[in-house]
């Protein structure tokens, strides 16, 4: 019996049985209530739900327990036994719930307690997701750092992992050049592309926000905003294609015309396009904080005879500054973690240079490269993806936390 069959049998049996339990308990409650003189505390439908829960919960607990046992490779319970156990426990639960059918039994409270726990469980999933992300990168990173010293990883300037699989296959030693995992050039590339992206996104995004919140009429604003947001709705793989097929050759041609040498995998193309992608992000976050600056501040300045631009420059922007900083930090974190644009348009070769026309690579490119080849899962090369992921996670978390702290300061002042 395959897992898929087991699933089908389990839920194929559980759902009709649950419906039956509901119907049985509800009709018994209606009959009992009309035979009884006083009204029951809970409505018959709650008795229905109560029995349904008593049938479904034990059965699902059995299934969950078995799948956990199997996941940890402790013991694999045969399918038919699992199904039989679930059925027996479910029926026992149903029988038990029916013995509660009395006038003063609070079925509603019991049902609501279970529903409340269900909602709480759902809320816990988001925490589990974070834990999952942290654990998945931390565990594999530890294995990576057992092979490659963490100091070499952080400060090394050469990334040459090609021979790592030999060590993984037990053939390390003399005659084989040791693999090098110096991540410095990779981070340099990431920061270069992020810098270019910010040089595009920050001025354009900020001025667009100023224009929309301070200059544009209400109608124009209503029309411009959704148009700008189209930019945010374009998938990154599409941006990547555009950067690689259209922008990159264009840059090479322009550079050539100016007498410069440019690689087709130059950092400029992905940087520029990433900047465009981030414009709506930057503009809508800035727009929010600029509009949150109280109108009285503007009125006060205008009443002193300042021009509109002076009001914005001297009053509005300084007031909105923490919010803008927070938006900037979030935008940086987004640029650092962006993957498809750089995978498609940036290079694969780690390159420590300040020339944006040369090819360079980024953290996310290296993660994708390490995990999409035919490498064995245990080789240091594959594990390096998780080490890079750990750094990426740490970086974005720090940026998010600083950004949240800055914006909280802003809110305390004006909201």
């Amino acid at each position, binding site marked *: 019996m395959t897992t898929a069959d087991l699933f089908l049998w389990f839920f194929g049996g559980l759902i009709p049985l649950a419906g039956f339990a509901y119907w049985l308990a509800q009709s018994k409650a209606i009959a009992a209530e009309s035979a009884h003189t006083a009204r029951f505390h809970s409505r018959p439908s709650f008795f229905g739900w109560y029995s349904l829960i008593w049938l479904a919960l034990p059965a699902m607990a059995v299934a969950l327990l078995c799948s956990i046992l199997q996941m940890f490779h402790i013991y694999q319970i045969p399918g038919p036994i699992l199904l039989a156990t679930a059925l027996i426990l479910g029926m026992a639960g149903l029988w038990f719930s029916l013995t509660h059918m009395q006038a003063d039994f609070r079925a509603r409270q019991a049902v609501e307690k279970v529903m409340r726990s269900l909602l709480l469980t*759902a809320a816990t999933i988001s925490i589990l*997701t974070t834990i999952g992300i942290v654990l998945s990168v931390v565990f594999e990173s530890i294995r990576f750092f057992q092979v490659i010293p963490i100091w070499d990883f952080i400060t090394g300037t050469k990334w040459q992992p090609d021979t790592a699989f030999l060590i993984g296959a037990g053939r390390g030693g003399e005659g084989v050049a040791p693999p090098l995992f110096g991540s410095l050039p990779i981070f340099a590339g990431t920061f270069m592309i992020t810098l270019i992206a910010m040089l595009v996104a920050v001025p354009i995004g900020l001025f667009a926000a100023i224009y929309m919140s301070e200059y544009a009429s209400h109608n124009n604003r209503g029309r411009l905003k959704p148009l700008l947001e189209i930019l945010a709705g374009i998938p990154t793989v599409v941006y990547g294609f555009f950067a690689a097929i259209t922008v990159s050759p264009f840059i090479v041609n322009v550079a050539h015309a100016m007498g410069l040498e440019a690689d087709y995998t130059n950092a400029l193309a992905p940087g520029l396009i990433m900047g465009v992608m981030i414009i709506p992000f930057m503009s809508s976050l800035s727009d929010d904080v600029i509009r949150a600056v109280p109108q009285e501040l503007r009125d006060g300045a205008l009443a002193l005879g300042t021009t509109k631009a002076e009001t914005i420059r001297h009053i509005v922007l300084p007031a909105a500054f923490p919010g803008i900083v927070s938006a900037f930090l979030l935008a940086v974190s*987004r640029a650092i973690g962006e993957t498809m644009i750089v995978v498609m348009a940036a290079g694969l070769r780690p390159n420590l240079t300040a020339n944006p026309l040369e090819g360079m690579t980024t953290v996310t490119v290296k993660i994708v490269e390490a995990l999409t080849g035919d490498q064995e899962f245990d080789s240091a090369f594959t594990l390096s993806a998780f080490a890079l992921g750990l750094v990426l996670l740490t970086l974005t978390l720090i940026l*998010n936390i600083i950004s949240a702290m800055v914006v909280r300061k802003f809110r305390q002042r004006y909201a």
Partner: protein
Amino acid sequence: MHNKADNFLHQGVHPRKRKRERADARFHFYGLAAVSLALGFLVIFFIDIIGQALPAFHLTEVLVKVHYTEAVKSNYNKAIDHKLSRIVGRSWLRSLPMKIEANPALIGTEEELWIAADSRVDQYLKGHDGHGLKNKYRKIVDKMQQQGKVRDVFNWAFFQSGDSKLPESAGILAAAIGSLFTLLITMLVAVPIGVMTAIYLEEFATDNTFTRLVEVNINNLAAIPSILYGLLGLAIFINFMGVPRSSALAGGLTLALMTLPLIIIATRAALRAVPESIREAAFGLGASSLQVAWHHVLPLAMPGILTGSIIGLAQAMGETAPLIIVGMMAYIPDAPGSILEATTVLPAQIYTWSTESMRGYSERTAAGIMVLLTVLLSLNALAVKLRNRSEKNW
């Protein structure tokens, strides 16, 4: 007096004032320029993509005479004039032996058929650089064209087939079905869990450490790069839980976790917009908190929840990076039969094609992008419409 006041307001412009006015105009211009730049990019982008994509929607067919003989069973090249073997699409040629096998009565007959041409012929006739068609074949094609044995038709195959190693028969159907499967899983997992979390936080939770932890956590999750969700999917779902690699289940679950914070945030905003007076009214009549949430708050928040969910799912639909990590970019020509089979999705298909070197693929990449963008922009437009329609005051 009156004159003096008039003079004061209309006196010749002070040089300093003129400078300030110029600065004001300049600032206004910067704003306008920023918006124009962004929108200008959008226009160029769409023109470029559509320009690249349009050729993919039509395709060259050639008229060839087919001879069905016993020899074709073992060597399909014998079915047609050997000079044409590089002109017609190979996938059709390869299907001939099976066709004869299935219908032996065909042997000994012959017929004239319009067949999709090889991609190189197609590219040559579309006048694209880098078509890769050799000189001697070019002459054959030119001659056939004079004889009227070449025609241009709408490329139905693009919407009816999956990926292929031959560009002329590569299509997006398999990827579209894969996307549908994956998105279905994402929706079934992320929407209920997201809505339940939001209901818990807005309607039930008291302000304690756990609640604050969940809130901080959700905001952080919303800002974590999508590729890290791919690492989570690989480590937890595939390596630990044993979900098959490349399957719609693995991809869908990964995307579900990624979409979850968006849906939670949107749902919370929608729940918060329901006025407190409605809750009070229901509580005052003796409804329990579950009944208040289920009978009153949720129905009123539904348009907002739907809008948020659609936007979240549209984003998941365009996401590529985490899916690459969970193995959804392999060469998978067939549509999946179940959520456990290996599959690809639209954005991953676009990525795969973009890495192919043959000219025929790059126009298909652009065409795939057009299809994806059409779906995503329609979804977003639907969400905006829903939001506008439901914006009402209590």
